[in-house]
């Protein structure tokens, strides 16, 4: 575990972040203020936030989950979560781009690739020259990931990969794809993971989805037609794909949990500002009790579920399996994000729905957090399985 170096010292002591992490958070806040001002425009125009992502790369935000020997900053999962909460509180499309790059692609490569593979791809990934995408879902396999059909047939020193991957975040912008494909019939043990580069013959970007939210993050189909994938692009061993996919998703879920925290916080801040603005001529609050109650409940849950997210991140940073804890973090934060965004629209009223404030965008962006990288329903079953009959 190359990313576990941070865990030598405590990251959170008595519920306070370490000074290093607080400093890092300030650094990220500075980035969001300088570079994410156009979030609403990117959304309206469904335009990929290229400049913000490049700026993030320059500031080193695309290498937090990569070991130092490969050019990363090895800050680990908790640092990534803190970063992602800040970024997503301003722009969820930028947020998910970075989350997938760091929490899915870089983390996966760092944990499962051999040294040669890491030396081959990390130089481009840590600088943001390349963005990464994670290609697991297909038209007929979403929550039921093991039902995937994409095929990888061994042919000498390479594999021939064919299939269509759906719902690929950053699909049209990524240069490196982690592709899960079937090397054998066995439902679970027949799945293997590969790195596929965009420029290889047979790789193409298919249909682009038009979505409710995170509209500036391109979600596309990735079509693989008889793509010759060199055998040295196999990640881990044949048949390890499903294990890799699930393990990686534990980390990915922490990224999405952090996205949800960011969206929730932004929504709660809108409500707070609205309440603060409701004063009579003498400066006394005229906000209604029911609105204050809603705000109070949301604010308490924000703190509570952030702790769940941090806890799971630290476990992962320490190399401890955190499947149940990550599922708790994702299922609670994603529901909170939706609840908070809906409340913001309700409480802001016409200003919440008209587009005059960020509320309506937050509501649309929030909705994806309950769906991708493991739907809420699946998270609940994961938690129940983890706690009712511990394995």
């Amino acid at each position, binding site marked *: 575990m190359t990313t576990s170096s941070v865990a030598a010292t405590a990251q959170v002591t008595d519920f306070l972040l370490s000074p290093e992490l607080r400093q890092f958070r300030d650094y990220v806040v500075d980035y969001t203020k300088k570079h994410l001002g156009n979030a609403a425009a990117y959304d309206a125009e469904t335009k990929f936030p290229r400049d913000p992502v490049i700026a993030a790369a320059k500031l080193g935000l695309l290498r937090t989950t990569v070991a130092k020997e490969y050019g990363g900053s090895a800050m680990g999962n908790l640092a990534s979560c803190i970063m992602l909460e800040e970024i997503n509180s301003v722009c969820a499309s930028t947020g998910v781009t970075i989350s997938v790059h760091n929490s899915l692609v870089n983390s996966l490569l760092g944990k499962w690739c051999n040294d040669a593979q890491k030396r081959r791809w990390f130089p481009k990934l840590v600088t943001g020259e390349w963005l990464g995408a994670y290609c697991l879902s297909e038209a007929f396999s*979403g*929550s039921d990931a093991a039902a995937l059909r994409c095929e990888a047939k061994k042919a000498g020193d390479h594999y021939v990969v064919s299939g269509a991957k759906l719902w690929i975040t950053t699909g049209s912008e990524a240069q490196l794809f982690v592709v899960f494909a079937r090397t054998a019939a066995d439902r679970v043990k027949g799945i293997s993971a590969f790195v596929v580069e965009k420029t290889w013959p047979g790789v193409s970007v298919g249909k682009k*989805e038009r979505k*409710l939210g995170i509209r500036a993050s391109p979600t596309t189909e990735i079509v693989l037609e008889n793509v010759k994938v060199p055998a040295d692009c196999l990640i881990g061993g044949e048949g390890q794909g499903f294990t890799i996919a699930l393990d990686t998703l534990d980390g990915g879920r922490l990224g999405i949990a952090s996205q949800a925290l960011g969206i929730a916080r932004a929504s709660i801040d809108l409500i707070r500002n609205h309440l603060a603005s409701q004063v009579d001529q003498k400066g006394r609050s005229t906000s209604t009790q029911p609105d204050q109650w809603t705000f109070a409940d949301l604010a308490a849950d924000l703190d509570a579920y952030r702790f769940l997210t941090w806890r799971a991140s630290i476990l992962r940073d320490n190399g401890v399996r955190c499947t149940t804890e990550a599922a708790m973090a994702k299922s609670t934060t994603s529901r909170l994000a939706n609840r908070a965004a809906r409340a913001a*629209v309700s409480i802001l009223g016409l*200003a919440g*729905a008209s*587009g005059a404030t960020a509320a309506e965008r937050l509501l649309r962006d929030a*909705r994806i957090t309950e*769906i991708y990288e493991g739907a809420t329903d699946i998270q609940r079953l994961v938690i129940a399985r983890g706690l009712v009959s511990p394995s």
Partner: protein
Amino acid sequence: MHNLELTEDQELVVDTVARFAADTVAANVLDQDEHRVFARAAFDGLAELGVFGLLVGEASGGAGLGFLPFVAALEATGAQSSSLARLWIGQLQCALLLEATRSDKLDGVMAGATLASYAGLEHGLRLQHGRLHGKASLVPGALEAQLFVVAALSDGKPVLATVEASAVTRAPLRCLGLASAGCASVGFDGAAATVLAGDAAAAISRAQFAAWVGVAATAVGAGFACVQAARKHAAERIAFGKPLLAQEAVVRKLVECRRQSEAARHLTWHAARLADLGQDGGDAAMQARLLAVDAMVNAADEAIQIHGGYGYTVEYHVERHYRDGKTLEVLDGGAQDLLQRLAARQFA
């Protein structure tokens, strides 16, 4: 479908609208919504069906059929398009207000020749010396309206007035929902207004009531539509070797959603019945509106979840219903206003 004991005339209107909604409206609704195209053809279609005078008395040239067929027909419309339903509600509110004030503009509005928008008291507009001041920050239909019927305060008292579209400043909005309803902000900026005669307060109340039951019925229709769409998807979608519909938790959600919309429907009918009997259906109408919109948002939310990634795309109807539901919620003063009114009526 319903259990409303409608007259033959009423039944005819409801069936006609339901067919029009299912056959004609449904065809373009996704595309128009995605590209924020105003539902002009559908509006004109409703005009042709002659339903804008549904609630206007026969003496004034309307059909005088009452609220029951109105809510039944709006439920069928809401199942397809909340944008269209909201336009209809606005047009009909204007017709009611113009009837109450014996305005000569009533005929054009009833016929649909004049597209009218109503800006209610919630916008805090003021009338002074025959001119309107203030801004309505979100009015459905406003972008395309030829005529505005406006409720404003004049010396602290409610008055009604009409304003020509040419006299106001309109700005299109990227609203959360109702993307085909031509939502806009409207600046009145001293626009010359024609003050309408008659009992403004009573007329405003009736227009409010029409919006409450109308939105309730719209949301009931949309809520059921979400359940229906989710059921269809769940029956077709295979996961873990069986259709989603075979999963208990999925069906449980649908049962819960349906139960909520069903309850809202009965409150809506109850309110409409009371009004048609000349009784006060205000409480029931507000309760129905609150419950129905909550049920619609919840049903759309669950339907999106059942659709998974598909539900997050604009190719399915459920994300549209989700946005529309939240937008319906904040109109007409919003849920907060209704709750405060109910509090005052029931517990003051």
